[in-house]
């Protein structure tokens, strides 16, 4: 805990310090260069094809270059379509990597996240979290990624089976990823919710198209910057910003999307995407966002069950003979 606090202070302190230096060189306040927030698709940061955006307001922090109101891309149907193509191509290669390799790549993501925790915490605070709350959330998010990193090469051991069939056949069942999975991240907690929803999906070898929390999309984009500087191949995790009510039905209807994990407050929207998903017999799991108690919990917020939601079981038979 001590270490974490220090880290936070150092991070804030250095940003603050830069401001002081700026002021020292000139009497006028220097205008910070603020960030253009973009969606993350195929390993690249892109604007919405729609050319539209929505606005997010947050507390203006001294440590941040952002103005109080920022524009976030308003993802569209076509953005979903483009992301699916990218995600589909990425998924096959992602699944083809060895589980050990995927595990190292996911672990690397945890390393990057921890290294950029100042930025993540600042983003959470900007969206209304307390400093302590933000630090706790980043801690938990990093630990959750580590949890799933170590799971990559355990899944098959736990979910596979050798089936003692009655006959001269060797039969076994193995888990396989489903393909492209749509994720409607919970509105809050913006970082831990996103991580908790996405990590089990990619741990199993799927790729994800995520609709970030509309409450705090900026944190999701900072997370994408972590992804971009990690070794997670482009296209494995794709993050769209925008309104779940716009994008969820698109994901639910898209025939190339194999499954959907949706954490949504809106029960009517949950029902409607379940209905939309039926047209392609999609594997769809919807739920209200978890309480903080549950999502921060090591039992309630993570586990094999979350991974298994988006795994298929393939049973293979072969005769045993000469």
């Amino acid at each position: 805990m001590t270490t974490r606090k220090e880290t936070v202070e150092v991070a804030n302190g250095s940003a603050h310090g830069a401001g002081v230096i700026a002021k020292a060189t000139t009497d006028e306040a220097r205008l910070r260069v603020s960030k253009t927030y973009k969606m993350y698709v195929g390993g690249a940061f892109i604007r919405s094809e729609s050319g539209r955006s929505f606005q997010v307001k947050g507390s203006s922090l001294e440590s941040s270059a952002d103005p109080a109101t920022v524009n976030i891309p308003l993802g569209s149907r076509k953005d979903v379509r483009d992301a699916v193509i990218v995600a589909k191509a990425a998924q096959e290669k992602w699944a083809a990597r060895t589980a050990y390799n995927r595990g190292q790549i996911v672990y690397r993501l945890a390393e990057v996240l921890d290294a950029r925790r100042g930025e993540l915490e600042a983003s959470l605070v900007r969206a209304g979290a307390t400093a302590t709350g933000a630090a706790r959330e980043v801690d938990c998010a990093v630990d959750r990624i580590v949890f799933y990193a170590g799971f990559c090469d355990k899944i098959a051991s736990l979910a596979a089976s050798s089936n003692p069939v009655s006959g001269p056949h060797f039969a076994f069942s193995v888990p396989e990823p489903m393909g492209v999975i749509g994720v409607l991240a919970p509105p809050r907690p913006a970082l831990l919710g996103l991580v908790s929803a996405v990590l089990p999906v990619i741990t199993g070898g799927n790729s994800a198209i995520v609709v970030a929390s509309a409450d705090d999309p900026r944190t999701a984009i900072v997370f994408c910057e972590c992804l971009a500087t990690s070794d997670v191949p482009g296209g494995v995790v794709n993050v769209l910003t925008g309104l779940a009510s716009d994008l969820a039905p698109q994901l639910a209807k898209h025939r190339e999307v194999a499954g959907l994990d949706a954490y949504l407050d809106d029960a009517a929207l949950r029902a409607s995407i379940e209905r939309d998903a039926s047209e392609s017999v999609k594997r769809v799991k919807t739920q209200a966002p978890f309480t903080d108690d549950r999502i921060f919990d090591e039992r309630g917020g993570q586990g094999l069950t979350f991974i298994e939601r988006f795994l298929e079981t393939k049973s293979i038979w072969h005769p045993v003979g000469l």
Partner: protein
Amino acid sequence: MSREITKSPKGIAAASAGASQAPALDFGRAWDYAPALEGVSHIKLQPRYGLFIGGAFRAPRSDKYFATVNPSNEQVLSEVAEANAADVDDAVRAARLAYEKYWSKMRGAERAKYLFRIARALQEKARDFAIVETMDGGKPIKESRDFDVPMAAAHFFYHAGWADKLDYAFQGRRARPLGVAGQIIPWNFPLLMAAWKIAPALACGNTVVLKPAETTPLTALLLAQLIEEAELPPGVVNIITGAGETGAALVNHADVNKIAFTGSTEVGKRIQASLAGTGKRLTLELGGKAANVVFADAPMDQAVEGIINGIYFNQGHVCCAGSRLLVEESAHDTLVRRLRDRIATMRVGDPLDKNTDVGAINSKMQLDRIRELVDAGEREGATRYSAPCALPSKGYWFAPTFFTGVAQSSRIAREEIFGPVLSVLTFRTPDEALEKANNTMYGLSAGVWTDKGAKIFWMAERLKAGVVWGNTFNKFDPSSPFGGYKESGFGREGGRQGLAAYVELDG
């Protein structure tokens, strides 16, 4: 054969060019097998069956009954009750009561013993179940006797053992039953599907309301009698008969926690849609259009058997039927020639004849559908070959048939025919085989035939199907999870993995 016969309309059709060459084998009648009919005189079906609700049979509130017909001679076998919404409600209430009062409180070890008892009783009454299955559904007695009924008993026996071992099945997690499961099953394996549904649900601590298909309700009703005799607590298993409306009432009943459905993709989608927003759990086992991929280096004669078994088993009324034969182009002519000779030996006719290989089509409706698709295949220019067998004049029949020269885009290569009709396509390279095999909205099963071990694994890894049979086909076992990818449905039945469909897990 003494019974009245008519010639199959397309008796001896033109075979594909590559396969029609002298010398030809003659599968004639030099030595014809006399009819070997399974005795049925001891089978006493009731003229009318009620609904099995709360541990006893009773008349339906609907006051309606419908006939169930023997598809091999169109004779009415019995009348069964048509459950309406009020009957469904009764059944669900009975299941809920049984769940709360008995089943959820019972130790797993005790549940296990009830399931073992059902398995044993099924084994003891195996022959009668087989005969009734064949009479009601039209499948050959050889299959109901040697496959459906023993496999149904095996499913009860297998799952019985899980009832007190759920903590081992989901190590590190706690498994809780879901409550009341509504289960809707198809007409192709009536008793076996009932076993696939009831056994895991009960093992996991759920109670059930099961609706068999309207054309094949009898063995489920016999199973209800058997369950009554096994003295299961009343209401743990409820069996209600009816058609689509009854099923819909069950699906939409507010107090059902889970729906398990096996049937067509079309109906599966409707069920999935109607469950939207209800929080009910769902598993679906739907249609298929399986590719059976034969490489030129395959053990060819055994591949032929696998192809035959893959498509003509149970008249092709099998969701995982190998209905698309993808054969390496260099082996096409050799294979087609053997296929043609092989289906010439198949015996189509009275399902109760122990020598019958292909029985009756399950219903008039299904026969019409098969004919429509076969006509489409001919119109699209594929070459048809039907076994030169005589078909009985009464009942619903279709001779074993295959098409060569089928394009990947044609209807008979894409749509599920659910009949004894095979589409033969060719490929040149493994990549092309794989691409064609996966080029379907379905993903239930696939077959691969090659003598090269590495190639089996290469294919098996890449085929998008829930079951991959290497150098075999249509093998089933209670310990082996079965279920689909893509529009063939979701969830698994059988094995440890299949239990997940009937429990809620933490973490």
